[in-house]
């Protein structure tokens, strides 16, 4: 019951955040200098053509009216049409085609980062102050300070151009071949994952070390529990709550990384669509992509809240 209330409140909060966020995206897009009609038709377009283009795309309506129309349509899944791509692709279709690729690479990166950090962070904390700790901690600092695009090029240099293990460019859609997606998505995912793994490892190490000092850990020792039992059931289990929270906070940086890395590796994801559309001043598409990213961030936070609610019995109280 308490848990239901807790989740209900979180979902309402997320919806409110979505509305406000979408409004902000809309306003920002319309504050950007540069005329969409000129961009679409070219600088040499006749005033008549520009006027009819503006009328056709409702660009003369008041801003609030435009937002309302757009939001209402968006709720039914209609995010408008591309004005830069020939054939007038619908934004929804563009996103539907690219979102699975982004989710695949982003999710793959997250899994790699979590896996690395669980191992490195646990080892560093349980070997506090010793060789393993120093290695893991300095490794984390090095990886955190690597720009992801640079890391991407380095990975390509070594693993595809040098060793020939992975393709240097291009991505096989997971719908075509899952194995192919894993193979071609590995380097982009790794490039995103490595700096994140550094952040996550340090985070886990810190919370583990804090948890080691808790009174309940001393009490568990006094009860005669074994070392590994105490580590897993007391220390790790309780450190998991701040760790999951910290991962949730990194979600938006993950998306930033995805946008850059999609360009480097030629992954046809939402980030690529968004960057192409931005260069073409295709506001509708950029806006749609931004909203998709907003939804992803909010959904991630909701997921993290749900996980924390399950992990921490005090949370829902």
């Amino acid at each position: 019951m308490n848990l239901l209330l807790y989740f209900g409140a979180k979902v309402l909060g997320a919806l409110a955040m979505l509305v406000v966020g979408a409004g902000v995206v809309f306003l920002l897009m319309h504050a950007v200098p540069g005329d969409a009609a000129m961009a679409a038709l070219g600088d040499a377009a006749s005033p008549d053509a520009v006027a009819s283009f503006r009328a056709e795309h409702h660009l003369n309506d008041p801003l609030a009216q435009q937002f309302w129309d757009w939001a209402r349509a968006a709720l039914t899944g209609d995010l408008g049409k591309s004005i830069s791509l020939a054939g007038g692709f619908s934004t929804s279709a563009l996103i539907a085609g690219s979102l699975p690729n982004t989710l695949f690479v982003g999710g793959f990166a997250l899994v790699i980062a979590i896996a690395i950090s669980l191992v490195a962070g646990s080892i560093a904390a349980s070997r506090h102050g010793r060789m393993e700790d120093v290695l893991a901690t300095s490794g984390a600092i090095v990886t955190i300070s690597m720009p992801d695009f640079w890391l991407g090029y380095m990975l390509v240099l070594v693993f595809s151009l040098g060793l020939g293990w992975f393709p240097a460019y291009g991505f096989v859609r997971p719908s075509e071949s899952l194995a192919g997606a894993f193979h071609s998505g590995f380097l982009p995912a790794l490039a995103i994952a490595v700096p994140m793994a550094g952040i996550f490892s340090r985070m886990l190490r810190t919370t583990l070390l804090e948890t080691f000092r808790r009174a309940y850990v001393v009490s568990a020792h006094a009860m005669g529990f074994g070392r590994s039992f105490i580590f897993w059931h007391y220390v790790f289990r309780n450190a998991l709550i701040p760790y999951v929270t910290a991962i949730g906070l990194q979600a938006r940086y993950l998306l930033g990384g995805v946008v850059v890395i999609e360009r480097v590796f030629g992954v046809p994801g939402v980030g690529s669509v968004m960057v192409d559309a931005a260069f073409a001043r295709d506001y509708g598409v950029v806006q749609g992509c931004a909203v998709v990213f907003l939804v992803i961030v909010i959904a991630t936070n909701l997921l993290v809240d749900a996980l924390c609610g399950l992990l921490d019995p005090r949370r829902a109280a």
Partner: protein
Amino acid sequence: MSAQAGMRETNVMIEPPALNATNVLQVHGLNLYLDAKGRRLHVVRSVDIDLAASEVLGLIGESGSGKTMTGLSLLRLEPERAQITAETMRLDDTDLLAASQGALRGLRGSRIAMIFQDPVGAFNPAKRIGWHAREVLRRRATRAGPWRPVARELLAEVDIADADRVLGSYPHQLSGGMLQRVLIALVLAAEPQVIIADEPTTNLDNIVEQQILRLFRKVKRTHGAAFIFITHDMSVAAALSDRIAVMYAGEIVEVGPTEAVFETPKHPYTVGLIRTSRALQDGAARLPEIAGELPGLSGQRTGCAFAPRCPERMPQCTTRTVGMARPAPGVQARCLLYADA
């Protein structure tokens, strides 16, 4: 004089440890050093503790005097950056200094147990009480059978009627008094020889404190365990203890039978503590507090640690090493007022 009282008397004498077979716990010359921000603190100083089977020793002293560190040392749960030295440190026939980590884990919770000041902090916040009971009873229970009936039985012994509700609760859902009862029940499950209770009622309100103290008296009657009952509250110590040891700045400054220590305290520090406690009970508006504060714990000490605050200070108190004197039968006091020469 009864046989038991006679035995108590021999307890406090420093004898070759091997000869004293009746004591479940024999500690002689226990020292604990802590590294705190580059400084080496001598937190526990040449402490002797001899505990007979089923005896209750009250360990009293103001906050920071080293009571908790002494208790943790006895389970060898001293902090990571601490060093322990001792001439003797035996639990029954086990040398606590030489025992391996594995052997110590086998002793903890089964032959020597500890109850902590903060009952809420003693439980895993992510797990229900039933989880704790199951894990403890699976490893430690002396009674046969599945854990749940045994847990109900143990909880009944600590006067918890609705055992199933308690077992199904998370620690944060229960009161401090309830959690302390649960902890006592879990500790009793293994029938340990020695139980160290570190200010187990300090964080509880007055009524609950009285209930828990009653529970300790009942446990003392019904179980054979010896207790070290740590407290800074003289009246609590008096209510439970057979003997009292008074700790000051890492040292035991007086030890003796409870009546003797309360009726005729010898060490000026004990005299001050008891005066303060009596005034508290009488609800005095102004407390006759002992002036000054605890001395630092770093480095060597010449003379008596209490000398700067002592109303009876003599010139030699700050220059001579002060050993234990025997001002009365069974009583020892670390004070030059009672020195032979």
